[in-house]
């Protein structure tokens, strides 16, 4: 009698432990994976149910194990400047154990979340006309103009419906205001948008934030805001062909500012001028910007293409050098605007130094030419334009 009871108890306890582990795995997955891999998420692979997770478990295990997922290509600095999206060792172990077991019940609590990001069409900022991206080829830059009816103060911006079919080819979006409509002359073709970057005069694209597959929602730190004028919003997109002709129509929505979000954020552009990458060489270029007044840096956007392999951003003055950002293995597919957890004061007289590493050798896994060719500044896929956009607020406005 006793052994039988003990056996029942042991089996029951085992089931409870399995269930508890499963619940933990589902929680980790829901928190760290589902925001992008949900029903209407930005990731190309939808993993919104236990069944879908289990049938992609080998791929998921491999990418979680080697640290590719969740994507987080910037190293957090010692004082935690950039949000670290990587899994803790405990969460990683929990997820890998459940994926390795392949038991669907471990992810039963993961449910389709189609309505999470659903929004009314009237809430979205969207261009009037779409563009058809060809089925094949390399990454393409295309800028669209979307009307913004009235001036608004916002905390950020998000992809209106990142999982929608017309959003799927888009890897990144960079926003800038064009209140005078200076770019409209370029937007006169039969299809929506034009093949150019979205800089508006000296205002870089990204001045109103940026979005990516990895970060479909961009929010400034508390206390800061964008002051968006009425008029056109230039939405520069970088897209990759899906293997079929695809309609592309970027749609975004503002994230409203709170009453305390009063410090207006501006952008400064640090572009790589006259870029020339010789075939079969690796090179590092150093871009600098001298601060003329005290500023608080809240975010950095690094723009580059297939040849950009690393980025380091420092602030230097006469006595010290502070590291703002390290991206040791830049991949455009996993790039994002890096928003600091707290604003970084750059005092007048200091210099922002960006070191960008390029690889134009055959060892570059994204090398588009065989053998490598000299590369000049220009649009991808065969040209390379690199720029660092720094989002900041005047320190004089700090409280």
């Amino acid at each position: 009698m006793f052994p039988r009871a003990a056996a029942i108890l042991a089996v029951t306890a085992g089931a409870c432990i399995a269930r508890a582990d499963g619940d933990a795995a589902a929680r980790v997955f829901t928190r760290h994976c589902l925001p992008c891999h949900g029903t209407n998420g930005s990731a190309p692979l939808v993993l919104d149910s236990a069944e879908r997770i289990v049938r992609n478990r080998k791929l998921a295990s491999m990418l979680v194990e080697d640290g590719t997922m969740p994507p987080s290509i910037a190293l957090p600095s010692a004082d935690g400047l950039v949000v670290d999206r990587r899994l803790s060792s405990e969460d990683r172990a929990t997820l890998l154990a459940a994926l390795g077991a392949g038991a669907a019940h471990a992810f039963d609590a993961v449910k389709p979340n189609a309505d999470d990001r659903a929004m009314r069409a009237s809430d979205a900022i969207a261009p009037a006309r779409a563009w058809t991206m060809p089925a094949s080829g390399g990454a393409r830059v295309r800028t669209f103009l979307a009307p913004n009816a009235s001036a608004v103060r916002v905390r950020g911006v998000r992809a209106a419906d990142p999982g929608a079919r017309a959003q799927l080819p888009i890897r990144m979006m960079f926003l800038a205001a064009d209140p005078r409509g200076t770019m409209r002359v370029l937007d006169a073709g039969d299809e929506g948008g034009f093949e150019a970057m979205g800089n508006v005069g000296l205002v870089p694209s990204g001045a109103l934030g940026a979005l990516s597959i990895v970060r479909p929602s961009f929010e400034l730190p508390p206390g800061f805001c964008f002051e968006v004028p009425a008029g056109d919003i230039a939405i520069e997109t970088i897209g990759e062909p899906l293997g079929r002709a695809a309609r592309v129509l970027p749609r975004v929505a503002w994230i409203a500012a709170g009453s305390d979000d009063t410090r207006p954020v501006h952008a400064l552009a640090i572009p790589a001028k006259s870029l020339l990458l010789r075939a079969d060489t690796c090179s590092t270029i150093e871009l600098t910007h001298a601060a003329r007044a005290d500023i608080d840096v809240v975010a950095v956007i690094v723009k580059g293409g297939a040849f950009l392999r690393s980025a380091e951003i420092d602030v230097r003055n006469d006595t010290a050098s502070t590291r703002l950002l390290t991206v040791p293995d830049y991949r455009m597919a996993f790039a994002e605007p890096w928003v600091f957890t707290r604003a970084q004061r750059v005092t007048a007289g200091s210099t922002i130094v960006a070191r960008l590493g390029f690889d134009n050798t055959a060892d570059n896994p994204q090398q588009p030419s065989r053998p490598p060719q000299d590369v000049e500044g220009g649009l991808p896929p065969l040209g390379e334009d690199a720029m660092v956009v720094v989002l900041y607020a005047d320190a004089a406005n700090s409280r």
Partner: protein
Amino acid sequence: MRGLLLHAFILLVTLAACGCASAPLSLHVVGEPAATKADAHPLDGARGSLVALVFISHECPIANAMMPEIVAIADEAKARGIAFYAVHPARWPTDDALAAHARDFALEGHIAVLADRSQELTHRVGATVTPEAALLRLDGRGGFERLYLGRVNDLYAAIGRRRAGATSNDLLDAMRAASEGRAIASPQPKAVGCFIE
């Protein structure tokens, strides 16, 4: 229960008699109306004939991104007299979903698309990811010699590392070499993509 055991026994006897290489495959052609749906027999060609298979998944972004290149390779295969099939090694998608995928990616008229729901062909060939390509020389008895198993091309070096275009067309090179009597280059580069589960 007795009926089930009898069926299992008959199946075992059949497998033992035929050997794995000549066991009939359970495949069907995607995109045909159910009433006329034909079983497919990609391994039933004449002795010495070449067959190219590309294992794909309607859900895998990497496989989908390569479809234009795969269609172009299929067209060249046809010109060289090489049979070419795209194979879905998946149990779960409906026929309608696979047919819609073939329409979406303009496979119709270029590539015969097969559903390998039992994954028997997939396992016999040794494919483990999508997209992955195989080139086979048939023995005329339902068996084959595997000449190539690996990537279609190098459009993807890794997950999240896509080139503007492929710089190495490994399946095409293997097809050309085999049909011209030349040796196929080795080592055969591994495919990058979504695992076949």
